[in-house]
């Protein structure tokens, strides 16, 4: 029992709203050991959060409330997902933000059109904190896209309340400029028999770290945590997932795929799954695949599965990091396809299945185009150099 508790805290350090319980991380902590703290502009420590300089816009499909709320209403929303901060930056965000962007989807609403929130950063020199709450009523259906671009130093907490029986997708796109730093904690509470899909997509930014956590507010909930990232020269992109199976018959399915290119490109994927004693009959699977496109990149991939009960339906994980598959390239080239084109096909193929799983058609084309842009930076350039 003692040992179990220790491991539990290793996966998910005990939370607290009290800032005094969160010393400034040194980098030796398990949850910070991969993150380049020096490049965070103090977001993890004491950076002063100024008035927001980024601009936030959204559409408001009928029946949905999207609004910046303040005062008592905002205060009541802090921790609404059941989040008790386990990092200093999350605790600071909840303690300090004066307002909250609230997306409120009423019970039984079926929102056909995605609710698209764009955050356009204006100034990477100004540290900023943001709290976002996405609340989906029982049996509702909706898709929310959070789209981050521009220049920013942003500490952010996104809380998601997935009502009983609802079907919800949340996509968070980090397509920042090269100078952006973004620390974000997404916490979802998945209701009884609800279906939650969370997609983390990171392309741009100097440092992007997303913690995407899920716990369950009742039995029978299902969470699919998908992700796609592409790190270029010098970029640090870190995705941490935590599926806390605290209710019986819950499901989690994690699939993250990443590609790396250029000197110093660094990606981190940490997939934590905790199956608590009460969580009988659960199913969990997690997978991370990385495609290393050039020399000088590093992909860290760490699956952690902690099991406190024997009554599991299924639990598994897979992690693989590799270069281009020579056999795939040979097969395509043996059909006359030139090397650059063959590489393009393989990378597209690598991401294709995942992009299709996102299930937001308006995003798919954009993502394929972004992958294409990323490829033209390096993979194709490299090939022409070799060919010349």
């Amino acid at each position: 029992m003692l040992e179990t508790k220790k491991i539990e805290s290793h996966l998910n350090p005990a939370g607290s709203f009290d800032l005094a319980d969160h010393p400034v991380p040194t980098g030796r902590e398990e949850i910070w050991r991969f993150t380049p703290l020096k490049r965070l502009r103090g977001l993890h420590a004491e950076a002063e959060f100024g008035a927001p300089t980024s601009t936030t816009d959204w559409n408001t499909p009928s029946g949905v409330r999207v609004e910046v709320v303040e005062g008592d209403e905002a205060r009541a929303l802090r921790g609404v997902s059941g989040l008790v901060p386990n990092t200093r930056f999350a605790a600071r965000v909840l303690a300090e933000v004066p307002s909250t962007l609230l997306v409120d989807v009423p019970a039984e609403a079926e929102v056909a059109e995605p609710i698209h929130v764009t955050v356009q950063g204006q100034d990477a020199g100004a540290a900023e904190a943001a709290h976002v709450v996405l609340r989906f009523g029982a049996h509702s259906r909706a898709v929310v896209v959070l789209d981050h671009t521009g220049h920013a130093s942003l500490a952010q907490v996104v809380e998601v309340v997935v009502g009983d029986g609802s079907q919800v997708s949340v996509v968070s796109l980090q397509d920042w400029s090269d100078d952006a730093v973004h620390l974000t904690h997404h916490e979802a509470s998945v209701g009884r028999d609800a279906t939650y899909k969370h997609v983390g997509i990171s392309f741009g930014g100097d440092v992007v770290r997303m913690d995407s956590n899920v716990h369950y507010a009742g039995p029978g909930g299902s969470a699919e945590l998908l992700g796609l990232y592409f790190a270029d020269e010098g970029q640090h992109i870190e995705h941490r997932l935590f599926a806390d199976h605290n209710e019986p018959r819950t499901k989690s399915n994690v699939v993250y795929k990443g590609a790396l290119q250029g000197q110093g490109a660094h990606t981190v994927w940490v997939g934590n799954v905790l199956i608590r004693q009460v969580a009988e009959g659960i199913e969990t699977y997690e997978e991370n695949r990385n495609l290393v496109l050039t020399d000088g990149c590093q992909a860290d991939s760490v699956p952690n599965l902690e099991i406190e009960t024997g009554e599991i339906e299924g639990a598994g994980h897979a992690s693989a990091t590799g270069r281009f598959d020579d056999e795939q390239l040979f097969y395509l080239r043996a059909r006359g396809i030139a090397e650059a084109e063959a590489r393009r096909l393989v990378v597209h193929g690598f991401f294709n299945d995942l992009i299709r799983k996102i299930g937001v058609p308006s995003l798919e084309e954009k993502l394929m185009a972004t992958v294409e842009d990323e490829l033209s930076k390096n993979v194709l350039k490299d090939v022409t150099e070799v060919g010349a």
Partner: protein
Amino acid sequence: MSTLQITDLHVSVDTEDGPKQILKGVTLTIDDGETHAIMGPNGSGKSTLAYSIAGHPKYTVTGGSVTLDGEDVLAMSVDERARAGLFLAMQYPVEVPGVSVSNFLRTAKTAIDGEAPKLRHWVKDVNKALQDLNLDPSFGTRSVNEGFSGGEKKRHEIAQLELLDPKVAILDETDSGLDIDALKVVSAGVNRFRAKEGKGVLLITHYTRILRYITPDRVHVFVDGKIADQGGPELADALEAEGYDKYLTKV
């Protein structure tokens, strides 16, 4: 016109204990319109010959030459060889996840012809090629070879042969793992290809079974990286009756 000329070909692979010689001087010419069968026991180097001609990076040519209509094949990159008119139907076709068969076929056809095929004809051609090989049109939307059965992979290779229409096709054990119906379908595809003007075929096989449907002009017996014997179609019958033993004991 298409002539594939292999002269004194020596090939090695890198192993943990240094390079290992696998082909030890192979000489073979496939003249315009000819079909040659290569038969030989497991591990004799048949796939090595096929892959070396196609330019697989695993194999190092240490001597000899390969020319297609006088052009130096060994100086070409893998994709240049394909565009020059060589086609290799692989013993173990490779899965390419996330790349659809139709996208793959269109990209290959465009590369080989140097221009995109006319869309209307192309869709028809692809559907016909798949149907001729007893593959449902729905294969077009599936990832290349992913989740295909062994037989489906082989039939997909021959569908590609017909669509890409090379000068010379090398078929590496395309018959293995096929039931009798699939064998007939695959043989019919190869025979349609052979019926066209000047097409060369190098048919690598373990068994004489496929030679009942595809009659070769020449048969070569391959043992320990070399051609140990050659003759007409009757040599295949002798091999069927006697096996490779008499060649193996000689080694």
